[in-house]
């Protein structure tokens, strides 16, 4: 069992022109083994929400519970993958992947076994001893995901991990990730602004509103698993897509109007 639960989480930033409400009254539960996607317009606070889940940011109000235990500080139970890869350039691919295991003082033989398995699984064979500078964007992100998985976290937090990749690479990475999830069944919280990505990957999609960020709607994705890329062209995918697009469009219009009203 490893569920992650947000209880009445709110976030406010003091600024010179008064307080900015970034997040308001967020309550949601991601049960064990669920792949949950958070979609919303840029600036809606979805990345902040993820940082709060990771324990990197302390919310103004409310709390995050992992298996019922409050999570106030970052820990190995919540692995995170950032859009910017954030690999350690001075470590080889293998040592990057083993970083968390080294922290945990896992014996060397066991470390090597696990990293070798992940290197093969992430299609990084032949690059074990290469430095990150030799890798493409897609490969770097595969190393970052392998590094998070090697630590065997309860929850995987992903902050627009494929946002910096080109469309073709992104598609391949999405397929790899859905296969990985099928294999490991981690609880995943995945932030994106790509609607197709959210539908393709998620069991459930949370749609957030613009500032202050609030949960607008929850949408269950009833596409069968395991998923493959043919499903993107299925009629059900198109239906889900138009639903999400409709809601987000409505939200974006509201945001524009409120900006105009303020101006």
């Amino acid at each position, binding site marked *: 069992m490893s569920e992650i639960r947000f209880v009445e989480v709110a976030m406010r930033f003091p600024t010179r022109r008064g307080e900015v409400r970034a997040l308001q009254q967020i309550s949601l539960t991601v049960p064990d083994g669920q792949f949950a996607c958070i979609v919303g317009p840029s600036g809606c606070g979805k990345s902040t929400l993820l940082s709060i889940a990771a324990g990197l940011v302390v919310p103004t109000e409310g709390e995050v519970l992992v298996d019922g235990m409050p999570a106030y500080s970052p*820990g*190995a139970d919540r692995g995170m993958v950032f859009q910017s890869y954030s690999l350690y350039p001075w470590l080889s691919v293998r040592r990057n992947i083993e970083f968390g295991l080294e922290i945990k003082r896992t014996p060397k033989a066991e470390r090597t076994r696990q990293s070798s398995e992940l290197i093969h699984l992430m299609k990084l064979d032949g690059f074990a001893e290469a430095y990150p500078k030799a890798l493409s964007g897609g490969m770097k992100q595969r190393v970052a995901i392998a590094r998070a998985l090697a630590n065997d976290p309860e929850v995987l937090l992903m902050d627009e991990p494929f946002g910096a990749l080109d469309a073709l690479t992104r598609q391949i990475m999405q397929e790899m990730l859905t296969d990985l999830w099928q294999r490991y069944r981690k609880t995943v919280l995945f932030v994106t602004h790509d609607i197709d990505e959210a539908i393709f990957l998620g069991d459930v999609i949370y749609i957030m509103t613009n500032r202050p960020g609030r949960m607008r709607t929850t949408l269950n994705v009833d596409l069968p698993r395991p998923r493959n890329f043919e499903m993107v062209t299925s009629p059900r995918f198109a239906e889900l897509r138009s639903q999400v697009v409709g809601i987000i469009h409505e939200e974006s219009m509201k945001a524009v109007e409120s900006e105009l009203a303020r101006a």
Partner: protein
Amino acid sequence: MSERVPATQAAPAASARVQRRRRGLLRTYLTPKHAIPRAMVVTLGIGSFVVILALWTWASATIHDPQHLFAPSPRRVFNAWVDMIQHRNFLSDVGWSTFRIVAGFLIAAVMAVPLGLLMGSFEIVRSFFQPPVSFIRYMPASAFIPLLILLIGLDENEKLIIIWIGVFFQLVLMVMHIAQRVPDEMLNVAYTLGASRWKVFYKVFLPATFPEVVDALRITIGWAWTYLIVAEIVAAERGIGSFILISERFLRSDRIIAAIVTIGILGLITDTIFGLIHRWAFPYVEKVHR
């Protein structure tokens, strides 16, 4: 990508010629930020020195100076340099100056790098040290020479402290900025992998700063030479600076020029050493510019 072209298909000479024919001379050599053929880079690099020597020779021949007091030719300077090494014990002066640079610079670096790293990572340290360091940085090190002579006299310590003043305050701020530029996400990833604050500091933060710190050392050791020579010219019995001052009294401009060129060569050697250290210790650094 040009890297993927097998070497056999792209012999350098042929490709340069082909490139010129296809693109025209102007486009090949005068496109902003565009690489030119390697052979041309080398030719231009050597050519600049040839031009300097030619202009110098021409100038010394043109200026009316029958006793060769003020405008010695390159040949004269070279002969003076050989004479200095053979009969004037110049290498001992070079040795003294080099010793002062290395000692003064090491003391400054050993103090500045840790303090700069701490200032860059902990706001509590930065808030305390940054105001005075930024203030003192604008005081020229050479202005301290008379004061130091009054306070501690003319011995070696005076020279080392001048170098220290010239290097320390600049280096602290450079290292501080390097530390501040370490991306937060690099540290945050380590936290989410279970690292403690201490482990994040020495396993992620420190190694992330190393290559740029070596770059900063490479830049600041060049400045150390300026301060040392000034200190030696003001008051010293040994060293390249004092050699220059004595040469001036005897109207030997050829020796002065030879000594200055020697400092340039020593600088090039230092730079090459730092370059090699960088390449050996940080093979993983992405080369942004060639």
